[in-house]
């Protein structure tokens, strides 16, 4: 995430420039003249968002004088491979366009080195969820084309004997081979995972439990105090969940339901005090651990509709930005959240100013439907520019397409497996 304050007085011009990149409200034109996102093969999603400090006023209810925070521009992308390489590629091939955008930000002098400028303002996410770690844009597209080809080809009739499934599958495998040879389909083998990435992941896998183990005695000793502290705060922290204004809602609706997938960007302040700060830091570290080592294959607990999600700390951990890309409507997304992972939302977001009242960190909170729905809409920020590399595709399809490809590439299969594979088509 690249973050930079917007120069006072340039916000309107910046918003106009961002809007000019879109083909529909909020939807980036992949070939827009400023940053032609579609030209970057490894880019899954990207967004440009202007964040202001409109809700800082809530801090008053927590006895804290609201800080005057600058309006900032945020640029977030989800890409294959190393983030820094992708940033370099962007700077190289879309440098002038990026410079046009960032010229509205503080510290960007004319003729500045765009890459160096972005690197200096790049922040790591505190936690990231990736629906399917390692699935590249190319793979998504190729597997989608494969599914379409097979789906159109497969004879849609009942099979007389179980062995017929093998025969039909063999014919399809052969057909695909021919299409690949003819250049009409491509099934690029996955790139090997870089050794460095694997080593870092392994180190993380081991280091976090070790550190936790080291901290455990302290946590145990302090547990009664920590629990008391949590309950005291949960009982007293003010809820701030007024109904969002109609005009603000309309600005959000305007950007939604133009694709199977929608974007969500929300901004909120962390509750004041060291307890919440440390608690959230620890919980986000734990979330990052779970997302990196456990939830890497299509689901985050019960939720299977999130492509990418990130939590960023901001302004010395006084604020958090949450961004996600999800399938379906906003209403469905929120209902999924409440009904499937309400506990998970509470664990993290109840450390945010104004969250509906929780009990024991997991109960209540987001399950207080009306308050939660107001809260999350009120904290949502319109995403000015949003790019998705595979319009129309939903995760449920991408998962099925991947299973189709796996089945295609297996050398042998039982009759039953061959039948199950045909039924995917």
């Amino acid at each position, binding site marked *: 995430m690249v973050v930079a304050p917007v120069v006072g007085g340039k916000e309107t011009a910046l918003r106009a420039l961002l809007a000019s990149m879109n083909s529909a409200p909020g939807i980036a034109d992949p070939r827009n003249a400023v940053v032609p996102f579609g030209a970057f093969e490894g880019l899954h999603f990207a967004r440009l968002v202007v964040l202001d400090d409109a809700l800082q006023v809530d801090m008053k209810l927590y006895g804290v004088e609201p800080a005057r925070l600058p309006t900032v521009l945020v640029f977030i992308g989800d890409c294959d491979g190393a983030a820094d390489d992708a940033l370099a590629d962007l700077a190289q091939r879309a440098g002038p366009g990026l410079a046009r955008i960032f010229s509205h930000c503080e510290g960007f002098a004319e003729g500045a080195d765009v890459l160096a400028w972005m690197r200096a303002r790049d922040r790591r996410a505190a936690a990231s969820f990736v629906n399917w770690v390692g699935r590249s844009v190319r793979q998504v597209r190729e597997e989608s084309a494969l599914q379409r080809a097979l*789906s159109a080809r*497969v004879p849609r009739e009942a099979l007389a004997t179980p062995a017929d499934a093998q025969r039909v599958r063999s014919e399809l495998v052969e057909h695909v081979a021919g299409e690949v040879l003819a250049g009409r389909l491509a099934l690029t083998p996955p790139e090997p995972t870089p050794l460095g990435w694997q080593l870092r992941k392994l180190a993380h896998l081991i280091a976090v439990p070790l550190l936790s183990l080291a901290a455990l005695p302290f946590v145990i000793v302090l547990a009664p105090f920590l629990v008391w502290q949590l309950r005291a705060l949960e009982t007293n922290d003010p809820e701030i969940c007024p109904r969002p204004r109609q005009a603000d809602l309309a600005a959000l609706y305007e950007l939604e339901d*133009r694709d*199977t997938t929608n974007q969500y960007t929300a901004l909120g302040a962390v509750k004041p005090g060291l307890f919440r700060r440390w608690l959230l830091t620890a919980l986000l570290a734990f979330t990052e651990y779970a997302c990196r080592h456990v939830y890497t294959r299509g*689901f985050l607990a019960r939720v299977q509709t999130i492509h990418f999600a990130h939590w960023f700390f901001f302004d010395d951990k006084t604020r958090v930005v949450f961004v996600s890309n999800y399938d379906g409507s906003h209403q469905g997304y929120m209902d999924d959240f409440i009904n499937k992972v309400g506990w998970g939302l509470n664990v993290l977001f109840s450390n945010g100013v104004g969250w509906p009242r929780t009990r024991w960190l997991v109960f209540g909170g987001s399950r207080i*439907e009306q308050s939660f729905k107001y809260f999350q809409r009120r904290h949502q920020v319109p995403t000015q520019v949003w790019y998705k590399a595979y319009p129309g595709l939903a995760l*449920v399809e991408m998962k099925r397409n991947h299973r189709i490809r796996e089945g295609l590439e297996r050398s042998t299969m039982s009759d039953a497996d061959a*039948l199950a594979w045909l039924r995917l088509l």
Partner: protein
Amino acid sequence: MSSALAVDFDDIQGLVRFGYKHHTEASFLLLRVTDRDAARRWLSTVPVSTAVTTDPLPEFAIQVALSAAGMRALGVDDAVVDAFADEFVVGMGDDANRARRLGDVGANDPSRWQWGAGNRVPHLAVLLYAIPGRLAVLQQAIESQCQGGFERMACLATSDLDGIEPFGFTDGISQPLLDWERKRVARDAERTEYSNLCCLGEVLLGYPNEYGGYTDRPLLDRGAAGALLPNAEDAPDRADLGRNGSYLVLRQLRQDVRGFWQFIDGRAGGDAARREQLASAMVGRKRDGTPLIVPAIEQIEGGGDPKDLNAFTYRSDRDGLRCPLGAHIRRSNPRNADLPAGPSGFVSWAKRTLGFDADALAHDLVASTRFHRLLRRGREYGPGVTIEQALGSASNGNDPGLHFICLGANIARQFEFVQNAWAMGVHFDGVANESDPLLGTRAAGVDGAATDGFSLPRADGPDERIAELPQFVTVVGGAYFFLPGVRALRWLAGAQRGSLP
């Protein structure tokens, strides 16, 4: 004032409790206020029928619902109107974002509607029901009473097709059973079984809903609101304008019965049995209402007698082999619980909750049904068309259809969700790019992918797929109304300057 638990049937309009099935004649007047004072006078005395049971049956039933524009036309303060749900305040037909969400695009576009958009948004819906032979008298009386205060924008006539919707299928079988006795403790708890019993607060404002919470509504300052309105259960010092009221969604759906049967007949190659089979697969029931899932095998809370064709879930047919995943009734009411089924015990529960049960996860694509129930009160209109007639003639421009009506306390979570995610959703329960076989608009996806297919899964081969379904149902009008409690109706008619604290 009333105790927290008692339900005042005499303050609830009858439609919430009854379908008025013995009142086989009905017409819906859509009115606009022309003279505020006269309109108010009429509304403060109109004898609306309540949810109290009477014996013998009354000859007539009158129900009155108001749109947000209607409330404003009556002089209700903006602040009061704006305290109703956002969907109601903005309305159905004048919001392109909503239209996109609901599938009101293309042929369904509100700009083409007969009513419900622009200056054709009704202020009032007056629903008239009568026992056979008596509607004309009632309607004449009401229309003459309304002449001074209103202009008639439209009169939606209905026809009695004997419980069969125009395509020929028995309709109205699945309904949630409202918990009128308030047996279910109103609290937030996971429910691992599908239940047909539904908290009052899912339909009526002012009562706890399935989350154990109260849906937002105008709660007025007691002093300014006067003594007429009931107290809010959750804020006893406030007057509850919403209590005993429900949002009423009305949509006029034109059904191309000839197109429907001719298309299916073509796909069936003229074979009558095959035709019935395909049509049943698209609906999820046979024409007589028998579900494709064999009922009478499950005991469902609030499910009633197994013979009522409603006592089943899809748990035994998770792959849609008997009832296709995309069938109309499966989309409209997936009958699932909060958590996919699994063995009892904490370990299994935790695995399913954390996503570590791959099998459960594979069948966890549909949101929990109990938060998305619709209490349907629609009526058919137009001439009944038999299959033989449908197959043998071209449309004469007089297509029948359905005046779809549903009641609910939360338009966004109920009607709009069901319409958007379930009916129009092209990935509902993992189906591949297809929308509701009856309701779908067949609009191509953003990537140009066709959505005009319908898949029939089978155990012994790839899905059978019917392609190039035309659009069978067209929206030709629609609006959101509020069906107030009787006291709230009188209060709105008085249009006191209620102030929100």
